[in-house]
């Protein structure tokens, strides 16, 4: 495609869409789809057809609108509907020319919507992810055009560095610095990899970005490839996300057909090819060296660094690995400039972050907020607080590598440094709220079981350490734990943290450490109950007593 063609395609698509008098958008991401939003979409289309209004009303499937727990969500002109079902199709279409359907209305003036700051998700809920034309109408590939035709690779890297963008996968490494390192690495073959292996339980931001706006991810990757001098890209997606795989595959095929990826993009010397690779359900593959092994068709086992992937990654070539959300931030930075991006967020954490709000809160779903927002505001204003008159107990961020933040720390702000200081991490963005009925020792056990099962088994501290810690937590939960068990658990936390090879093992003790830090009394209660039981009963009754006998 030539630059003029992209512009004319965009203008034509915009003219075409403004020719419609009304627009109905239906969320067609996994969450709403499981509530039959695809049937609803078809019913709306049929309804418009029966009324003979196909030239007046545009009906399309779009990405996530955020409030997943009230789905399926439908946007009909200015009205947003929640809990919409196929049988409401007629009323919704009728409502376009008369009054909106009152009983389905969702209040878009509530803090859940008004407090958000949309950068990555600006087009989610507006564009049809399966239509390249619609994405182009909303500005897709404009940033790639700008980068390729008006900027040198060095300028692109400078722009990303100046923006202050940090990796959204969890660790928060400065993206510009990473790009510069790969750019400086020698060798003609380089790779860019998009990490779409969102293994954190309770997190679905990346799934949503891939399902709702896949071209934005491709565009970000292409810009990154141009900046670092790579010609090959790989998107690694979990096989558990079939819809994301389908949408990305379609997006890649469409972009390839329209020569937005391929040889000599926009008539420049830059060529870029992308392949999709499926994960197969291994949490450890979120770690970059394990991910590379998996892309190479091997068991996803991490290896020691250095060499870092930036120097020796996929097939031994210099490789840039970024998270889905990181790539999705690239296009707006190139379009609007580093200065614009840098004014969002805090001094050290720039931009916005998407969070998956779940657990016991009123509003579950996806939110995107400027970095630096206090946790309290997110949980009480945006998420609407804890329902059923229960009290808030803790919020878990960062998945199995993160920690639990108690009520007394709710005034901390959401950025990389504050969360780390509170004993948790930003992580990929899962935010699970727990009310007073949750037992924190049980929560720690849940995460430890996860880490134990997901440990790849390569290094002993992680493989054996997580198993032992899980056993100890089991004993404590089942009121069989002793004070010595608790002490051993604490000791093991330090050992596993310091001696494991990769991030999985190093961060596996975090949920235990953070619950010990803020909720130690719950551990002590359980241990004391064991003591009390011991005082009352014979050892045999506690299940601890094992009789050994010699076989004749």
């Amino acid at each position, binding site marked *: 495609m030539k630059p003029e063609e992209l512009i004319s395609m965009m203008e034509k698509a915009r003219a075409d869409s403004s020719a419609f008098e009304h627009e109905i958008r239906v969320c067609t991401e996994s969450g709403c789809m499981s509530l039959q939003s695809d049937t609803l979409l078809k019913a709306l289309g049929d309804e418009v057809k029966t009324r003979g209004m196909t030239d007046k009303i545009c009906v399309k499937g779009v990405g996530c609108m955020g409030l997943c727990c009230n789905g399926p969500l439908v946007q009909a002109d200015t009205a947003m509907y929640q809990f919409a079902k196929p049988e409401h199709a007629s009323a919704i279409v009728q409502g376009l020319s008369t009054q909106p359907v009152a009983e389905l209305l969702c209040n878009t003036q509530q803090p859940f919507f008004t407090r958000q700051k949309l950068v990555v998700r600006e087009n989610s809920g507006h564009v049809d992810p399966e239509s390249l034309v619609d994405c182009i109408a909303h500005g897709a590939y404009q940033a790639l055009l700008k980068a390729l035709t008006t900027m040198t690779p060095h300028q692109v890297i400078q722009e990303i560095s100046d923006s202050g963008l940090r990796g959204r996968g969890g660790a928060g490494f400065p993206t510009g610095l990473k790009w510069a390192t790969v750019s400086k690495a020698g060798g003609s073959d380089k790779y860019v990899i998009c990490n779409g292996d969102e293994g954190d339980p309770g997190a*679905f931001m990346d799934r949503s970005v891939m399902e709702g706006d896949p071209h934005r991810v491709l565009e970000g990757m292409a810009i990154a490839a141009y900046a670092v001098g790579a010609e090959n890209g790989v998107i690694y997606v979990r096989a558990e996300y079939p819809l994301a795989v389908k949408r990305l595959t379609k997006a890649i095929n469409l972009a390839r057909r329209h020569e937005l990826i391929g040889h000599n993009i926009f008539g420049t010397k830059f060529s870029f090819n992308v392949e999709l*690779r499926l994960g197969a359900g291994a949490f450890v593959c979120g770690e970059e060296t394990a991910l590379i092994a998996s892309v190479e*068709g091997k*068991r996803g086992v991490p290896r020691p660094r250095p060499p870092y992937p930036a120097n020796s990654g996929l097939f031994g070539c210099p490789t840039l690995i970024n998270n889905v959300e990181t790539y999705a931030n690239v296009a707006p930075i190139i379009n609007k400039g580093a200065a614009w991006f840098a004014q969002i967020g805090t001094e050290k954490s720039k931009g916005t972050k998407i969070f*998956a709000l779940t*657990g016991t809160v009123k509003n*579950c779903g996806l939110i995107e907020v400027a970095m630096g927002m206090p946790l309290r505001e997110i949980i009480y204003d945006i998420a609407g607080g804890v329902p059923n008159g229960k009290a808030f107990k803790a919020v878990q961020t960062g998945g199995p590598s993160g920690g639990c933040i108690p009520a007394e720390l709710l005034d901390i702000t959401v950025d990389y440094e504050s969360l780390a200081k509170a004993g948790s991490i930003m992580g990929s963005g899962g935010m*699970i709220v727990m009310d007073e009925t949750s037992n924190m020792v049980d929560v720690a056990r849940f995460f430890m079981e996860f880490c134990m099962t997901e440990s790849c088994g390569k290094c002993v501290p992680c493989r054996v350490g997580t198993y032992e810690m899980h056993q100890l937590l089991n004993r404590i939960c089942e009121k069989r734990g002793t004070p010595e068990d608790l002490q051993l658990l604490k000791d093991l936390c330090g050992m596993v943290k310091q001696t494991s090879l990769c991030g999985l093992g190093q961060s596996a003790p975090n949920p235990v450490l953070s619950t010990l830090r803020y909720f130690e009394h719950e551990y002590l209660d359980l241990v004391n109950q064991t003591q009390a039981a011991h005082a009352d009963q014979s050892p045999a009754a506690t299940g601890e007593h094992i009789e050994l006998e010699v076989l004749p």
Partner: protein
Amino acid sequence: MPVNTVLPKPPTEDKRWKIIETTMRRNDFQPDALIESLHSVQQTFGFLDIPSMRWVAAALKVPLSKVYGVATFYHFFTLKPQGKHVCVVCMGTACYIKGGRQLLDEIQRHYAIAEGQTTKDGQLSLLVARCIGACGLAPTVVVDGNVLGKRSAAELLAALDETVERKRQS
């Protein structure tokens, strides 16, 4: 890259082996296509058995031990045939907090199977997922690819009974 033209004979006469062959051909029979090829086998036949792994190993020129290593490393692959219907209970954090464990217990009790097992009549397999990414609808259960969210144990068991029963008659 030299393309492997002499492909070993598939384990059976089944025409569906062509599907896997297409996947491998698309990747020029390179060893790094191993995971893609195993996905293809599992999608087509429902599980990975030793003859299929042997064949993929020969076609991609990868040692069988490596193929077996990969097949057993990743949770997504299964070496046992699945039941006619598959019920996956999500055990992600959000689902766990909202009672996923209780749902799993109820299903196990109702059908007298543990996670990872299939009922004796081969009708239902019960699996556990790490997180299916539909946390807004927690607790979630996936029955034959359809996500059922925010159900009580009773509602869920009724839905499951209906699925198993209905298909049994057809």
